[in-house]
């Protein structure tokens, strides 16, 4: 192990881990507090639900959300790419908030994204928000991608699916202790499937208890890795309420 792994090790402090390595269907996957997953063997970085240009998408409908979300998301993405220096980046769908997002992307952001893509492979996975190939950007375009023992697609399939890594649902977990509930976005995995947190700066989240999550996990083996301020917190699903 070298480079990126040592990077995450130094990020680890006494308070708790900034990244946690888990096993998904036999493949080691590092879940990072930054909201990205890292496959050390393939040197692949996975991000999901960037929802770029979400502010602009709402503005087109008459709700003038701050236009700073794309810049914020790209800055965090750039930091993660710099830290891991991946050979491959997988953007797991809903990379743009709507169909016209990539087309109307302001030139400065386009250049920033192109700079990140340089020197590495990049795969855009098709999402429900962006069912078309991003306009004017490099990278492959695919409905799904197989790598090691894993399959990457945007929407999780119904029922159990061995080795599936998906996004779409924006998972969050709620931990209740001493009468107080704390909800945070999380990585969720039962060892067979991994659900990625949404990476976009202004994307909300849906709790693991929500009916939309039903049947996706073996709840007895499900562990949520909650994104805290400086570290990840790993909590078993059946211990959420203490």
């Amino acid at each position, binding site marked *: 192990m070298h480079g990126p792994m040592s990077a995450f090790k130094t990020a680890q402090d006494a*308070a*708790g881990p900034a990244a946690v390595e888990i096993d998904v269907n036999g493949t080691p996957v590092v879940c990072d507090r930054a909201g990205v997953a890292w496959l050390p063997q393939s040197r692949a970085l996975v991000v999901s639900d960037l929802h770029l240009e979400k502010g*602009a998408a*709402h*503005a*087109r409908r*008459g*709700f*003038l*959300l*701050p*236009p*700073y*979300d794309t*810049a*914020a998301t790209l800055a965090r993405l750039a930091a993660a790419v710099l830290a891991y220096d991946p050979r491959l980046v997988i953007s797991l769908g809903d990379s743009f908030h709507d169909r016209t997002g990539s087309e109307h992307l*302001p030139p400065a952001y386009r250049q920033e994204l192109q700079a990140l893509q340089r020197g590495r492979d990049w795969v855009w996975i098709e999402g429900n928000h962006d069912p078309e190939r991003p306009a004017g950007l490099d990278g492959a375009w695919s409905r799904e991608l197989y790598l090691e023992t894993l399959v990457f697609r945007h929407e999780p399939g119904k029922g159990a699916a061995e080795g599936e890594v998906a996004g779409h*649902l*924006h998972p969050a977990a*709620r*931990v*209740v*202790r*001493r*009468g*107080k*509930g*704390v*909800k*945070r976005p999380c990585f969720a995995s039962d060892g067979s499937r991994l659900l990625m947190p949404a990476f976009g*700066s*202004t*994307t*909300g*989240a*849906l709790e693991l*208890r*929500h*009916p*939309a999550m039903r049947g996706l996990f073996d709840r007895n083996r499900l*562990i949520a890795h*909650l994104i*805290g*301020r400086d570290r990840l*917190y*790993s*909590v*078993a699903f059946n*211990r*959420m*309420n*203490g």
Partner: protein
Amino acid sequence: MPAPDRTDTAPAFTLPEPFHGWFASRGWRPRAHQLELLAETSAGRSMLLIAPTGAGKTLAGFLPSLTELAARGRPKPGTAGYGSLHTLYVSPLKALAVDIERNLARPVDEMGLKIRIETRTGDTPQSKRARQRTDPPDILLTTPEQVSLLIANGQAERLFSGLRYVIFDELHSLIASKRGHLLSLALARLRKLAPGMKTIGLSATVADPEELQRWLTPQPPEGEALAGRITVAGGASPVITILETEERIPWSGHSARYAITDIYRTIGEHRTTLIFVNTRSQAELVFQELWRVNDDSLPIALHHGSLDAAQRRKVEAAMGRNELRAVVATSTLDLGIDWGDVDLVIHVGAPKGASRLAQRIGRANHRMDEPSRAILTPANRFEVLECQAAIDANYAGAQDTPPGGDGALDVLSQHVLGMAAAAPFDADDLYAEVTSASPYARLDRDTFDKVIDFVATGGYALKSYERYARIRKRADGLWRISNPQVAQQYRLNIGTIIEAPMLNVRLTSRKNGVLSGRGGPPLGKVEEYFLESLAPGDTFLFSGKILRFEGIRENECLVSRAWDQDPKVPAYAGGKFPLSTYLADSVRAMIADPARWGALPEQVSDWLRLQSQVSQLPARDSLLIETFPRAERHYMVFYPFEGRVAHQTLGMLITRRLERMRAGPLGFVATDYSLAVWALEDMGAMIAGGRLDLGELLDEDMLGDDLDAWLDESWLLKRTFRNCAVISGLIERRHPGKEKTGRQVTVSADLIYDVLRSHEPDHILLRATRADAAQGLLDIVRLGAMLKRIKGHIRHRALERISPLAVPIMLEIGRETVAGEAHESILAEAAEDLLAEAQNLA
């Protein structure tokens, strides 16, 4: 409608026919204030009428328009009607508008007047609303939100061209809120549409009547203008006492359980008793406890805002028929609807404000000349002091309604979009119109232009939304909406009342441990955030029943009946009023003056006496601080008496400072009366050794950088931002039923706040958010006044052990869940479980 007085002396001004005859036929004479109001408004003045309940206030308000309508000629030949509204009546409550319609119908029918009176509320069918726009009635009874919708309509000009009167009922309860701000802007527009129109404000007694008088009349660019005022002296003084009890009054807590037997006995001695409480959870608890001792099965009911509407209507109807002996209620019953034959009001818990107490007591005995009777039931010893202070204030006629404050900018944004939807506007004209409304009289032009910019393109320094502008300035210099969808969007998102997301509570049954698939009856609604702290199986008190939380299905909270003795009481917000500044001062004065302790129960005066022996009493103009050790920790207790909210803010700021002074603070807890901070270091010794300077600790400068630093991180500000964002039209209102799909993730206001704060900290919406927080949520204004007052007047007592006055707050410490915002520590605690499990396996 309350009956006019039969005994008033005949005034100079008389009623025209057929009114004179109608009054005479019933053996009535109009009251002096009714005629005076008629004379003043006929002379073209806008008026404020301040009168106690039962004084015939509502009839007085309608007499000017009824007499004018009765005297008018026929509509123009060839037209179906008059084409315009004559009178607009605005009430804060839908129910009040409906009530007035019924009460006005009688005199109008009996006099054979050809006057069309209709209501228009959120419940009015779409077809009727559309008809009201094309063929308006003479008198329209409505709510503030409907007025905003009507003036934003393209037909507003015609609809209001003949408007003569606007009557505002319960004006005192409207103006000190964003709802009042929006209504003041609507009023400014109505004046422009109908220049000769007059306003009539009806109000209970208030602290600053001139504020209402300014509100009712246009403000000139320089100086101020006042509407006229008629004040009707109050009826007989109420008889108020503190509940007499043999029981021990507890040190702390809010349940008043100790008093239930005495309350029950008192109910038995009266015809109908209204029992007011401050919070919904208190209502549930008192109701439950009363039924526990209800051996005679007296009809006792429960009424609060979260209960299912059908259930509330049932209680109200039974109350009107005098079938109930007692109703336990929160503030939903505060405003002026008639409630049968109430002969006693019991107030459980401290009233928190002298005006609120006066209003609630006014519910008993709706006849002006008989004294109302009320009994106050303090829930703990500090509340005894507060109740006594409130009784003194009520006798003295003191008023402490909060001031209205400057008009909110998010509200102005909503209004600007509405005005563009109505018709193209000129910015100079609109600025003049807006600043004629008293809450916006001080609005500077630069801020106004920023609001327009915000409405147009979001007002961001990064000008990337020009092509998505909602309103645009055209070549003719007028601003107009970019497309018709903007107007539709405005209509769907109107209003200033932002409810916390609520879920329906539905009762289901459990058979052999299995939940029935079909839901039972709905019980009401609870806030989503309350349910979030529950785990399936937890029990809570709601709708007078102990319920077991089963889970959330779609948009509903499923519950089943539980038989636990000790439920987890719902902690939902609503009705948590902080102690008013006026009462706080009265309580301080009473404590400082042993001569006044005679009015207090003996156990309470003994308690104060003991305090003066072992420590000292808080004086009226200084701040007492005690330090003492207890169980390995060191405590510092402050007694500012400034209300829980101000104390919470103070606690947050003081712990930050103690951290820097290396005292190792661990937590704090705040009540309405005092603040306790605990730390690792001996703060008493630090003060003695000069390592902790109390003057420095409580310096006013804490409201500068420390406050900003804390605020920006605070969830309080995020919640405020969400409201401002919805009101201003930045994000969509959550429409019930629309979010059912679940897969559609709504916009997260918290995240938008974070992004905006880091990129544009001076954005107009953040300004609006901070202004809101400073006024309401954090009571910063009050805290600032306190810090100024106590400067150089801090009294410190280093004690060996806890003082009598500190006992109540020390008892609160165990009850408080986690102090402040310990989110990360909660997560860490949960994460340790997994770690521990892993180690056990290894």
